[in-house]
């Protein structure tokens, strides 16, 4: 079989169009810049004597218009590739780009459905709906959802397995056909092969799942820890505050990379340090929910007992299964006490340690943010009113201060998922990731960088994927911040 070209039959029509759009955009940008430097201004609205308005177009306006339409044409070209790839359905005709777009069909359909529903009902959806008023927020949300759907449908989208090795394919360029494909096997490596002969495209797709499996969950845990410690530190102040702040600063003063190297080596794992750390860190969600329910339903004992009891039992079993692994004889005795039959799940040591170190690094920052917000909010009148009514301190913290701090916290949550993704990538980059074979983006970049100047194709796709996800999260956070400040 012939290797695939990048754009296939679609390219003959779409490439000149997109090239023209780019040229037009650059020309518009340069013209705009030059005109503004030369002292020209965009046209302004003029009120005429008969109370009509008229808009005078200046050359600057035309330059801006050219840029706008260039972007539209470019977007149309991209859509053309996506639809063309889905319609043609034959990789030899649609090229690599079209074939990738065709593989991503379930993702496009879900995205269109999600956006259609959200934009239709945006007035009834609160802050989430308002996101669709800000173009930046929409772009960010689209990017994030693209990767979430890709991760969700990774089994359908990927063309080969994440660790399927075809050794003849080593370092083959994008679009290379398989040497002798069997029936039902996808006949090409769309983005080429890495130095072991694995499909780069499929690894990027499965990598999305690997990354999105850890990053949001780790961020949630970091927030639980940060909130549970930050609320009392800010609210009570005094010695408690001093001690926790000192500890938080201690962790923050540690260079992240050194901490990772110290935590994620096999010797440290053998000593059980990550298990001790997880023992401390994972207790916080349980404390959080127990205090949350207890403070809210203190006056309604039956309901309180039910909720707190359920949290303690369910959370407790999950917690003990999580931290202990009775079948591993190398662990300290403390983590082998829990009976085997109640041990619901085991987390592989490497995953646990990556997870724990990411939570550990992130939680002091969350703590600082929460503490700062609480220090501000606790001076408000409604807190004083709550204190006068005789409400308990934890009720005020969790049910009055926390809901009012949600704006900045949601924004920071989005940013922090991005930061966690970067951290995970850093871990992978230094070969400290989940496992050497894992398709997560950091590890793939690390493998690809050795032959980077000769074969750039294995390292570039995961790098761009990571960048687009983090960019999406940052833009989403920016859009949310803008929209939440409006009211």
């Amino acid at each position, binding site marked *: 079989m012939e290797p695939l070209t990048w754009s296939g039959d679609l390219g003959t029509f779409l490439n000149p169009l997109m090239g023209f759009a780019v040229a037009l955009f650059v020309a518009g940008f340069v013209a705009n810049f030059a005109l503004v430097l030369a002292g020209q201004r965009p046209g302004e609205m003029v009120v005429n004597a008969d109370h009509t308005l008229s808009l005078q177009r200046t050359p600057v306006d035309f330059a801006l218009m050219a840029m706008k339409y260039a972007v539209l044409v470019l977007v149309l070209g991209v859509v053309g590739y996506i639809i063309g790839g889905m319609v043609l359905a034959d990789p030899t005709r649609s090229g690599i780009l079209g074939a990738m777009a065709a593989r991503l069909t379930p993702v496009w359909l879900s995205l269109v459905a999600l956006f259609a529903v959200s934009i239709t009902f945006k007035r009834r959806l609160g802050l989430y709906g308002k996101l669709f008023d800000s173009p*930046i927020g929409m772009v960010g949300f689209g990017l994030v959802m693209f990767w979430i759907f890709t991760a969700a449908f990774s089994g359908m989208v990927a063309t080969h397995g994440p660790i399927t090795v075809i050794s003849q394919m080593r370092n083959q360029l994008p679009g290379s056909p398989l040497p002798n494909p069997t029936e039902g096997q996808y006949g090409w490596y769309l983005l080429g092969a890495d130095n072991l002969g694995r499909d780069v495209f499929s690894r990027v797709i499965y990598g999305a799942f690997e990354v999105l499996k850890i990053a949001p969950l780790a961020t949630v845990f970091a927030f639980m820890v940060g909130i549970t410690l930050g609320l009392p530190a800010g609210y009570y102040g005094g010695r408690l505050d001093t001690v926790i702040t*000192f500890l938080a*600063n*201690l962790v923050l*003063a*540690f*260079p*992240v*990379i*050194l901490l990772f*190297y*110290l*935590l994620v*080596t*096999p*010797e*440290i794992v*053998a*000593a059980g*340090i990550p298990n001790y750390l997880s023992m401390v860190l994972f207790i916080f969600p349980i404390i959080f929910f127990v205090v949350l329910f207890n403070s809210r339903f203190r006056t309604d004992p039956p309901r309180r007992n039910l909720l707190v009891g359920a949290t303690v039992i369910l959370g407790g079993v999950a917690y003990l299964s999580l931290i202990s692994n009775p079948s591993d004889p190398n662990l300290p005795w403390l983590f082998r006490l829990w009976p085997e039959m109640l041990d619901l799940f085991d987390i592989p040591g490497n995953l646990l340690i990556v997870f724990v170190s990411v939570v550990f690094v992130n939680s002091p920052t969350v703590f600082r943010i929460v503490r700062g917000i609480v220090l501000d909010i606790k001076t408000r009148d409604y807190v004083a009113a709550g204190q006068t009514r005789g409400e308990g301190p934890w009720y005020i913290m969790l049910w009055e201060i926390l809901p009012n701090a949600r704006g900045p916290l949601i924004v920071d949550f989005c940013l922090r998922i*991005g930061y966690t993704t*970067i951290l995970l*990538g*850093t871990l992978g*980059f*230094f070969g400290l990731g989940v496992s050497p074979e894992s398709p997560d983006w*950091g590890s793939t*970049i690390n493998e*690809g*960088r050795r032959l*980077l*100047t*000769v*074969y*750039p194709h294995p*390292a*570039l796709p995961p*790098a*761009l994927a*990571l*960048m687009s996800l*983090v*960019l999406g*999260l*940052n*833009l989403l956070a*920016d859009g949310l911040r803008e929209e939440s400040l409006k009211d």
Partner: protein
Amino acid sequence: MALFILRRVGVMALTALCLTFVVFFLTNLAPNLEKLAKTQGNARMSDAEVISWLDRNGYGGPLVVRYGEWLGVVPGWLREDPINGEWRGRCITRGQNPEGAPRYCGLLQGDLGYSTVSAAEVSSIIGGRLQLTGILMFWAFAVMVPSALLVGVLAGMREGSRTDRTLSTLSIATTATPEYVSGVIFIVLLASSQVGLSPLLVEWGWLEGGTLFFGSARSAMDNVTFWNFTLPVMTIALYGMGYIARMTRASMAEVMTAQYIRTARLKGVSFRNIVLKHALRNALIAPFTVIMLQFPWLLTGVVIVETLFNYNGFGWTLVQAASNNDIELLLACSIVAVLVVLVTQLISDIGYVFLNPRIRIS
């Protein structure tokens, strides 16, 4: 003020003490020491042999005592070899007579110890490496800070304008591009002989073979040139730039809404003069703190960039020490790293007070 600085220095010392103890504890865990014994001695040692090797080489005592020795507040260990009667100890070279040697030799005496992997004094290794990293940091800052401030001021002086939105989105994009991503993209675009700009330039005859920039900064360790140092410097500068630019933009936008700016405008001062003479100085107070706090952030960036571009500076040393469990070298690296973090924090606090007359410390 003096009391404030004194208290900050006290907290700083306490933090440094805690952190080095944590590093000491983690590097001296039993499995780590066992690995050390097996790499230094014999790979097939039995457990009893490991213990006796550790004891003979001064790793036997309680952890706190050994930490004290490393700090220099407890006398260094001294043992007579039972086989040949040779004296060995922390403060003496092998076979030297213990009399006349100093009793204490630790951090406080300026002795950072001995690197077991590269078989050299830690202080001599660290010094040279820090110098190399210093050069890298200097150029990164020289590129990053002025451009970030310029972008921030341009974006913040007319909040909500088209320039503002374009520049803000660009700075968001740079903060979303970690060093290992931008480094890879730069190398592919500018330093690869197969793809990107270099083959094009060769084809057009503007370049004599090879690549435009160097993908490795190894040659920059002897001689820094534009072609071998641009990519590492740009990679570090880009990631930090967006953050400083956003902070500057926020600060500038806030200043531009202040009363005195409105007054100046109403008096008919030109926009250029308002920005340059009235707003700029006040808008640059907040970014100062941010810039100082970028140092610790840059540390991670330096480690990544030095690994990616093969530049044997401090970050590269840290990675090597950590992956080889070179205990004393790693401790020295962590001391340097922690000091950088704490000193920049102190400078940013003190500098903020000096720059902003509205803040008083009683």
